């Protein structure tokens, strides 16, 4: 199905300016109009008291039932600590070649690692994470190109090593699949 647009829905507080900037970056990368808007859900349903984290699988399922129909890709943005049952944490996840994904800024903050807050670094990481998860939604798997945003990053410093852009290879795959 041909995609018409991308929607970024923020759940929780994000600076308007940051969201707009990220939306423009997303637009540039996927060449589709990108909108931002706010959403509201009761997150307590997803909170795992034992782990003091939020269940990313259940959350993605909910997002997919609410927003998965239609001709746009939706990425839900959070500020909470996400996990999936088998892993201690995730930055985000998406349905490969699906319509939806989730991403959180929580573990992208320097403060989380005991380092000095750094707003510009946070923005940089966040846009990479958003574009990365959308890349999965567009069917891309992890890429070995060290600069490519689709390179797998399990550690924040891994995110810092790559750029926020798709490599030529990944870009071509998307163009071919959205034609």
């Amino acid at each position: 199905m041909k995609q018409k647009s991308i929607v970024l829905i923020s759940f929780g507080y994000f600076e308007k300016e940051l969201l707009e900037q990220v939306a423009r970056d997303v637009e540039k990368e996927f060449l589709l109009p990108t909108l931002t808007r706010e959403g509201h859900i009761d997150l307590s349903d997803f909170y795992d008291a034992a782990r003091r984290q939020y269940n990313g699988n259940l959350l993605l399922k909910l997002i997919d039932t609410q927003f998965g129909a239609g001709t746009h890709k939706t990425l839900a943005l959070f500020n909470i600590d996400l996990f999936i049952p088998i892993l201690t944490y995730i930055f985000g996840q998406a349905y490969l070649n699906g319509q939806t994904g989730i991403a959180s800024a929580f573990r992208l903050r320097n403060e989380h690692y005991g380092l000095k807050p750094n707003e510009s670094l946070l923005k940089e990481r966040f846009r990479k994470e958003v574009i990365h998860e959308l890349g999965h939604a567009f069917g891309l798997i992890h890429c070995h190109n060290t600069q490519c945003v689709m390179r797998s990053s399990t550690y924040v410093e891994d995110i810092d090593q790559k750029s926020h852009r798709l490599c030529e290879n990944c870009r071509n795959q998307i163009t071919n699949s959205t034609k």
Partner: protein
Amino acid sequence: MARKVSILIVDDEDSVRDSLYNWFIEDGYRVECAEDAKKALSILETEEFDIVLADIKMPGMDGLEMLKRIKAIRKDSIVIIMTAFATVNTAVQALKDGAYDYVTKPFDPDDLSHLIRNASKQILLSEENEKLKEKVVSLENMEDLIGQSEAMQQVLREIESVSQSNASVIITGESGTGKELVARAIHANSPRRFFPMVCVHCGALSESLLESELFGHEKGAFTGAVYNRKGRFEMADSGTIFLDEIATISSKMQVELLRVLETRSFVRVGGHKEISSDFRVICATNRNLRQMVDSGEFREDLYYRLNVVNITVPPLRERTDDIPLLVNHFIKKFCVAMNKPLVTIDNAALKVLEEYSFPGNIRELENMIERAIVVGNGKKISVKDLPVTEGVAGNTFESLTDLEKNHITQILNKYSWNISAAAKALQVDRVTLYNKIKKYDLKPAK
């Protein structure tokens, strides 16, 4: 990559199977799931999998029993056991029975990907070793490293020949010649390519920052160290560490670095435990390290450790043949990035570029093309779009970039290139300033 590695996940819990399935699919593996040992064994009868990731505790046949049966069918299959809690005894038993390794749930994403990558590396390498015997290695991931000139072809051949080994490499060349790109090409063509290449820009960090950056630190090592943190050497485990501007490190750091290279282990700042890491070192410098050794600025023993192989990247003015190719490459790169139709360049402009000396090398050419696309008419780059002709006055800056470059130079000169002082005056941090210096390729006036 040669082919997709396949993984069979065996676990009785839906959520575990789903989570792992998603994770591995995103990572490009071929994945299948089974909810119990019986099902897994029957799948394995008809299909081969490179890796079996199995829960130890399952109703019916448990993971240990299944492991034995799998090993009986195929001795060299790789089975990784998942345990819910670290019951060391059973895990050890699993290893004795031939499990490749075990992991404790829930896993750290970093550990999981490391484990699987190690296993797949082993599989692919043994397959590749077979093929390598006949096949000539051809370079992968080299699309970005442009150059048909004899000088550049020589560099490509050198990259190809060192990439298979573990030897330390020093890449020498003027600033902007593509040293970092060469380092990436070596890594991307080495058996370490499944693991990270970790870059450290030594020139941008003070001694103490560099130390904690490279070795990591323990909680409480200094004010602000609230958590433990991995260092770059640790992150480069199984991969490559790229030390850029190696000539800038202090003599104290030279000693520490030598020790790490000799022992392949180190202690985190404020820590006690020896941590070992399997990394390959690639360094870059725009200085003549040999001369620095002679003048006593750089340790000779460290120099010999690092300089097993030396690759020299020639300045752009010595490979002007490559300029048309590079120009086209950058036009494509920036037009795509700016979402503009591709422009061309007229012959006169190309000639100007071919005759220019490019003190800032490819980086300067790249910046020039980017600027030309921004200021140009959107169709053809012509001489007036290039800042290299006599006609352009030296002190009327039209673009913000030029203004910034000039201003930073003035402030740096004003404070005699004292970076801290200049950064303070400019109200930016040191790293930002270093990055700008690098971006514009600024140098102190002689």
